[in-house]
């Protein structure tokens, strides 16, 4: 055991070094082609954040130089431009070449399921973090990336538990990515039958091979409490036990048992409790076997409580920490009427009066803050690993939250990170983040001067107070990135 781990860890160092070298290559393309460093860009004018900036700040990880111009130009009127921007993000039908290019050298996490086990967990985790960062910074399908992160919290798994050390990359790419803007029941089914979640919440050992074996209720409880209905979501302990019975028999082939098909999920009828079940007042007839899971998920996702639970979380992410009952109701109705269509639910959300009128009411979490800062200044990153160190300090490394409820999405949980945000802002502006470069003089010139640059960063004209602080600080860019306005979205 020791020697194998030691070997893989040693191998890991080499692989990490290779990955780092690869990154230098990845970004070569950006310097010449993307947002060239001469093109001027426009910024909004006005005391309040304008609707274009608001839409960009909610549907993306923040405006890059030029984004405001591009979105405004999508339509003749502001309304039309925003509608087309929402369409573009909800129905992104091209391949996201920018994102793919940014992560193409991260080869370990792209390996087929069984071969992930050939890598050291440290390498896989590092590549997964770097990949999440780079896709969020460079991807064009921004709303999709945001929803991947949203579901990564909703269906949290921690890559340090058991075989999750190897299975998390597969969970990310095969479960979260394909379904992020799809249909919730399909996303949920993919989660329930994923090797990552079967490991993380012990579903793989939930079995009833004999009358004396009691099902493992761990996943059943979280399925109801965290994944679909919410705590106090109208289910009882009896429902948890019946849900656990319906989920018995799903196994993951372990690396100890076999060299073939490691990590593959299979249904073992001999370990399944095939009797009749009753969940939330609905019957699952006996003899269903592997189809019990589908009957179960139909019952659970068909609950009104499931619609309101998901709608509330979506409204919280995109509108306000305490969204209005009207917004939640509107999104819940669409969710229920469309059979859990995430895309349609978001369209309804973006159309609520509350979404259109609210401004900068939410605190960016550390990942969001860092990504938005890198985007705002058109940072060029040759090596993203030093940036993951900043995420570590702020306690927001992807796939590293220990408990199944995922990173908290309320402002109070994150205010202790201010000091690190200020330090990152200063370091980024002063070109002190290792592996990352900001062409700050070009940026200022392209923005048409200080006023334009501040308006780009804030989505509105800076206040007198902000201008005064910027002048007093000695470094306007650092101050703006550290400012309260830039912590909000």
């Amino acid at each position, binding site marked *: *055991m*020791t020697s194998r*781990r*030691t070997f893989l*860890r040693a191998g890991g160092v080499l692989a990490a070094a290779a990955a780092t070298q690869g990154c230098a290559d990845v970004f070569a393309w950006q310097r010449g082609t993307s947002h060239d460093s001469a093109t001027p860009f426009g910024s909004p004018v006005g005391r309040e954040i304008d609707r274009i900036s608001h839409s960009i700040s909610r549907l993306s990880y923040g405006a890059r130089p030029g984004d405001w111009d591009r979105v405004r130009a999508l339509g003749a009127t502001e309304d039309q431009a925003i509608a087309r921007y929402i369409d573009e993000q909800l129905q992104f039908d091209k391949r996201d070449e920018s994102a793919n290019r940014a992560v193409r050298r991260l080869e370990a996490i792209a390996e087929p399921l069984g071969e992930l086990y050939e890598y050291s967990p440290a390498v896989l985790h590092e590549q997964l973090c770097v990949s999440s960062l780079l896709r969020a910074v460079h991807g064009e399908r921004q709303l999709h990336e945001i929803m991947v992160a949203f579901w990564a919290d909703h269906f949290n798994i*921690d890559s*340090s*538990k*058991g075989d*999750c050390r190897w299975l998390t990359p597969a969970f990310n790419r095969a479960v979260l990515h394909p379904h992020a803007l799809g249909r919730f029941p399909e996303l949920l089914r993919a989660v329930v039958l994923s090797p990552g979640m079967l490991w*993380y919440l012990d579903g793989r050992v939930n079995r009833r091979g004999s009358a004396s074996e009691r099902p493992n209720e761990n996943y059943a409880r979280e399925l109801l409490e965290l994944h679909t209905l919410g705590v106090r979501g109208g289910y009882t302990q009896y429902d948890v036990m019946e849900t656990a019975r319906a989920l018995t028999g799903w196994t993951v082939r372990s690396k100890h048992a076999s060299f073939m098909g490691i990590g593959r999920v299979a249904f073992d009828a001999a370990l399944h409790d095939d009797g009749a079940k009753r969940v939330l007042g609905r019957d699952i007839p006996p003899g269903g076997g592997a189809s019990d899971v589908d009957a179960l998920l139909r019952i659970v996702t068909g609950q009104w409580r499931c619609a309101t639970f998901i709608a509330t979380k979506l409204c919280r992410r995109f509108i306000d*920490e305490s969204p209005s009952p009207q917004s939640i109701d509107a999104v819940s109705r669409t969710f229920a009427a469309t059979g859990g269509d995430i895309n349609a639910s978001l369209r309804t959300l973006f159309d609520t009066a509350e979404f259109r*009128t*609210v*401004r900068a*009411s*939410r*605190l960016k979490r550390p990942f969001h803050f860092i990504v938005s800062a890198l985007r705002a200044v058109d940072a060029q990153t040759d090596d993203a690993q030093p940036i993951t*160190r900043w995420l*570590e*300090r*702020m*306690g927001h490394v992807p796939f*590293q*939250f*220990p*408990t199944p409820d995922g990173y908290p999405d309320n*402002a*109070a*949980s994150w*205010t*202790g*990170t*201010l*000091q*690190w945000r*200020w*330090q990152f802002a*200063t370091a980024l502006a002063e070109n002190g983040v290792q592996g990352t470069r900001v062409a700050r003089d070009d940026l200022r010139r392209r923005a048409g001067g200080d006023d334009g640059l501040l308006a780009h960063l804030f989505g509105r004209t800076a206040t007198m*107070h*902000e201008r005064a*602080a*910027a002048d*007093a*600080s*000695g*470094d306007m860019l*650092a*101050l703006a990135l*550290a*400012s*309260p*306005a830039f*912590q*909000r979205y």
Partner: protein
Amino acid sequence: MRSPHDDQPHRAHRSLELAPTLYATSERDDARALVVIFLRGGADGLALIPPIDDDAYHTARPTIGIASRDAIRLDDRFGLHPRLAPLQPLFAAGQLGVVHAVGSDDSTRSHFEAQDHMEQGGTTAGGWLGRFLRARDASAPGALSAVAIGTELPQSLRGAPSAAVVRNLDDFSIGVERPQMRQAIAALYANEQGTLGSLLADASRDTVRALERSAAMQRESARPANGAEYPADEFGRGLADIARLIKGRVGLSVATIDLGGWDSHFTQGSVIEPLMDRLARGLAAFHTDLGASRMAQTTVVVMTEFGRRVAENASRGTDHGRGSVMLTLGAGAAGGRVRADWRGLASGLLEGPGDVPVTTDFRDVLAPILHLHGAPALSSVFPGRVSAATHG
């Protein structure tokens, strides 16, 4: 958007906090600090705290055993290795506690597996200190609430709300250095309004105060207090830095530091005796440096992933075993005694290939300490272990 009237209670609350007496109570630093020293490599509990009256011990270790006359007697069963002599006064004063035959239920005898298992605190995901900090600080943990001395975040701190890896405090710039930048930032945050704005304004004020305290600490002489003398090595300097953070009142709740090199398969004495010397002098200096009042709010825990085989091997070393010792110092130490469910070292009483059986789970030692340090529900730190936890 909320109406400005919603902000009235927050405003009133904040202006109250500016009154000098209440000002202090709003500080995040509750002054309780937990310091975890991990002895990596599997430290030999039978050398650190030898069972000097057990004949089986001397039989199994004819050349490397600690003779009864060389050890410093702690009680009617155990002694202290002579190289740990600086710890004797602390034990006598009830400041230092020893737990013997302690360990985890991981029986792989693999360093990596056992360390991961112990630092995760069982098979639950994340680290036990990370879960502790999350459970304790339901909202707004301080920016310097957790500090790892070293170059990488230990597994135990995985999932912490905020964790800084610091190699050396003097190289580490706490906060934004330029005063005009600090003032400009503070001015903007103080001007924030609304629900989120009030939250940011409060957090900014707390942060600025922590920064000022740590800046003052940086300016002060790094000289330890009360004539404490740390060993002049990286471990000693790390402990001194932790003491500075505690004395600087920057809001430190948890600090971790490693002392590695305990894997004594070969000529054990030459490998671990220098380490014991550094450990004992470091702990004694730390205790002196902090002084009685700060020690009353600080607990130090010394732990290792496993102990060594009872019988020495042919190269005067010992191989990977099971039970070892934990040391506890300060507030949560339960000091002045050796706690052990000790069954002796006769061959029939040993585990597996001849190892000290683990009769105390390390989590049961940590649980009351975490409780003292403010963990609201131990079930969230060590799921499934709460029943065994005693609060004393």
